[in-house]
């Protein structure tokens, strides 16, 4: 725990770190490189005092995605060797599997980055964004988006309960109907969200949001030496990695 407090970096430093990590993840396409990057992000999580195990448990669903994407890629692109075939359709190819793995590693890295950010509260992150000269309105919107994730999750749970209360077991429905129910639910859930955000916007305005041209802030962030160290190191490392990647993997 003392490790975590010792590592209470400025939220801007964390943002920088996350930006480095996720741009590496987005730019590169080789699964081996990506898996290495994933190991790095796991180590970072440990440094920030977050359990990577809990984090990974939360995203088990991704595993199903891999299989699904791997199949899709295999059927339509069919690169590499066929691993599983039915007739002359290849259900699983090495190429498809690699594509899926790349996708998953990328997602894992981005999830880990989000984990790093979650060690600052949203107020600090907004302040960080503002001091990075991002307009307050944008920063505020970003933080609202984050705040609404648990609300959405709750909403989704409510909706699933409501479906079961109509005596429906979505798991046993045939696929066609399953998709029909899910797409059917999409509309009211989205409409509900829009209605809610409209009243939220109104209540924000009624509290005088943007009544004055500039906003003062009680919380002021200051960089410390460790922030500079971390930023310089991660920036350099990213540059080296990118250079190495294009040199070795693309050649």
């Amino acid at each position: 725990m003392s490790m975590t407090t010792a590592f209470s970096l400025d939220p801007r430093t964390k943002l920088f770190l996350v930006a480095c990590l996720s741009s590496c993840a987005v730019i590169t396409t080789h699964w081996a490189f990506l898996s290495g990057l994933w190991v790095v992000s796991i180590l970072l999580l440990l440094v920030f005092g977050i359990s990577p195990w809990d984090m990974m448990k939360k995203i088990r669903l991704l595993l199903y995605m891999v299989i699904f994407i791997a199949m899709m890629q295999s059927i339509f692109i069919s690169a590499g060797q066929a691993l599983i075939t039915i007739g002359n359709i290849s259900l699983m190819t090495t190429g498809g599997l690699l594509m899926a793995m790349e996708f998953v590693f990328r997602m894992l890295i981005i999830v880990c980055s989000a984990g790093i950010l979650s060690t600052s509260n949203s107020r600090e992150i907004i302040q960080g964004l503002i001091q990075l000269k991002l307009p307050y309105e944008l920063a505020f919107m970003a933080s609202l988006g984050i705040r609404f994730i648990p609300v959405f999750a709750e909403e989704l749970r409510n909706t699933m309960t409501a479906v079961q209360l109509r005596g429906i077991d979505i798991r046993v429905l045939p696929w066609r109907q399953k998709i029909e129910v899910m797409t059917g639910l999409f509309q009211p859930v989205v409409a509900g969200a829009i209605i809610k955000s409209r009243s939220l916007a109104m209540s924000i305005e009624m509290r005088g949001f943007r009544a004055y041209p500039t906003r003062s802030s009680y919380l002021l962030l200051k960089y410390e030496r460790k922030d500079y160290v971390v930023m310089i190191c991660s920036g350099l490392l990213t540059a080296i990695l990118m250079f190495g990647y294009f040199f070795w993997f693309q050649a």
Partner: protein
Amino acid sequence: MNREIALELKNLVFSYRPESILIEQMNLALFKGEAAALVGPNGAGKTTLGKLMAGILKPSSGQLIIFGEEGKTLPLHRIAQRVGYCFQNPEHQLLAVSVEDEIAFGLKYRSAGQDHISRVTESLLKLFEIERLRKAFPLNLSWGEKRRVVLAASLALDPEFIILDEPTNGLDDEQIETLNRVLGGLHERGIGVLLISHNQSFVEINAQRILQMEEGKIVNDYCL
């Protein structure tokens, strides 16, 4: 009156958070065809008790017995075929893009015949006087209309018992009158109801048994 038990709680304990127990060692039986009302101050745990009886919340310990079956082993969609439940907030239960789809929703995915579905839907639209709203988008309706649609959708499944959380909330006198008529009809058909309500006269008209709840306990249980 038929004295067979519909829903029963045995030594039920429930808490939202481990450090504070909301309902402690509750024993309660609701009978088939019975019209009961659950009353009590805000925060007494009425909604919580209603959700427990409908199987939406799971007890921390103790048992819920639903028509003789152990509630723990029954998935919610199975319970819902016999026990209906309407949330305090009707918006949590609107799932479809039109009022008629909303009412037909539960039947459609349980392979009911088309004839049966349209017959049930029509009669419910008529019963709740919402025929003119059949094509409307449920989330755009007025509060009272939403309530009626949700109740109609629950009744479409033909439950044997139904739990209504504050059904008169936001209804005008005329709508309460309609609701009284519907509840009278349910009673005649032998369908049990548990009404969670703050509305004294509504309770007196529709319930024969009053359960008074305070701080997670039934402090009074009597017949009118």
